[in-house]
């Protein structure tokens, strides 16, 4: 009868571009991986060569002075030859970012998990979380420096304050997606409250949790660099103010390039995590 129709699986997975639906833009290029054809590789490289080579050519042709905009080759030389100078600052920035983000994200995650269980508490708390999300935490850095000095502490606190609410608000959206039938399913097999949380609620919230972690960590990076520019003598943000005050623009742009690399690494990491843990949500 209709056995054939019923036993042919409906493979709605498209093989390559199955991005997990959590990140637009870059996802198409990042997600396709091995499925890329040699023509696509050629075009990607060609466009990069045209953009970088074109910039090099135009900057030389119009004799743009180095203190206005250095050429890509000058930036590359500054990045490679002076890398040992940036290295300790890179470590400081990464440490502040990781510690601040770990603190903020953990608190944000736990708060989201707890608060969504109590709708009334959620109503009371949400306006303050929104306030934390929308207020630039950089504004607090001068105050934090007054209290904690010029070390890493004020920046770590600022990063935690910037990333935590982002993680919380997104994770809360995930935890709010209650599927009565799935919870009933777990209960019908004898699940207790903790098991319902770990086996049903967390996996169901996972796509939004990962989005929150991604946005939160990018906000954390912005805040780290901003806070380093405000005060202190360490970190990549501090190097930006330092090199620009000395009009050493190749070095300045080399630092920006490092920051961009950190940002992209964060994005790629969470994109990978999303593919791994949340790709079921097409």
């Amino acid at each position, binding site marked *: *009868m209709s056995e054939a129709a*019923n036993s042919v699986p409906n493979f709605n997975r498209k093989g390559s571009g199955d991005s997990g639906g959590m990140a637009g833009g870059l996802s198409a290029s990042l997600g396709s991986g091995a499925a890329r054809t040699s023509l696509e590789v050629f075009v990607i490289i060609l466009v990069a060569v045209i953009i970088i080579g074109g910039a090099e050519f135009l900057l030389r042709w119009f004799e743009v002075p180095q203190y206005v905009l250095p050429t890509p080759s000058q930036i590359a030389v500054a990045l490679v030859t002076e890398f040992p100078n940036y290295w300790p600052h890179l470590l400081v920035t990464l440490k502040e970012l990781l510690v601040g983000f770990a603190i903020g994200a953990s608190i944000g995650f736990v708060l989201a998990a707890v608060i969504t269980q109590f709708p009334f508490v959620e109503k009371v708390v949400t306006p303050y979380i929104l306030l934390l999300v929308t207020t630039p935490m950089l504004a607090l850095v001068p105050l934090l420096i007054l209290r904690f000095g010029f070390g890493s502490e004020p920046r770590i606190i600022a990063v935690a304050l910037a990333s935590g609410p982002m993680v919380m608000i997104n994770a809360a959206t995930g935890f709010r997606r209650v599927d009565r*039938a799935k919870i009933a399913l*777990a*209960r019908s*097999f*004898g699940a207790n409250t903790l098991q319902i949380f770990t086996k049903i609620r967390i*996996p169901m919230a996972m796509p939004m949790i990962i989005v929150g972690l991604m946005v939160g960590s990018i906000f954390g990076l912005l805040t780290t660099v901003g806070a380093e520019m405000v005060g202190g003598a360490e970190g990549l943000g501090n190097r930006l103010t330092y090199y620009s005050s000395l009009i050493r623009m190749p070095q300045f742009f080399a630092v920006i390039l490092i920051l961009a690399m950190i940002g992209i690494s964060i994005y790629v990491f969470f994109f990978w995590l999303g593919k791994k843990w*949340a790709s*079921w949500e097409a």
Partner: protein
Amino acid sequence: MSAAASKPQDTVPRTRLVVDHATLHYQTRSGPLHALDNVSLDVREGEFLCIIGPSGCGKTTLLWSMAGLINLNGGAITLDGQRITRPNPEIAMIFQDANLLPWRTVEKNIQLPFELKRKAMDRPRINKLLERVGLGGFNDKYPRELSGGMQQRASIVRSLAVEPSILLMDEPFGALDAFTRDEMNLLVQEIWMETGKTIAFVTHSIPEAIFLADRIVVMSARPGRIAAIVDVDLPRPRRVEIQTEPEFIARVMDIKVMIDHQRGARADHSMIG
């Protein structure tokens, strides 16, 4: 349990699940909703019971109460004399739209009840069950890679895997097309005849109920009440084709008249009220 199941068919089957004057009302925004009103019925050992009624008649609520997922306001539900207030390992539920967890493969879905009970899953037995329902080799597929019928087959295996003696099925094939539905009904009949499980099956399709059931409980809506209980003595195994026979159609008409009569009576009543 197995001793009881192996009893010869001609002895009077004992009663397993008893619903005794079950009453349930919810508070909704538009006032209290009387979902169940003094519902009494019993489910006998090894029988196939269908519960049918218009939408909103409380048949799903009744089934969820029998599974221990909803607590009653009045009356009681007992399994072998023991009151049911929470889910019982003797009872497994099969939900609407299969209700597979989309982040788990077929095998991991079937493994869920074992994880919850911290027990090891008997893999060869699961593979046998999967093969029995026509899903052999689909262990590592995700639900989204399966058709609706195949998803429901996987969910049936998940429920059979925990070896319950009673299966409660909540409109399991409501979302499937007619052909797939016929296939699934045949499969359920086969599984029921092979395993001797007690099944309570909620549906809003009269032909489906007549095709599957030994007895049909007809419910009326608002408040949810039992309007009639109908015996179906068609010989088994029943073939899909019997649905076109005049006798079968006459049975469908009988039940349809019962439901329409109830709805008509309610409409009249509301006109007066």
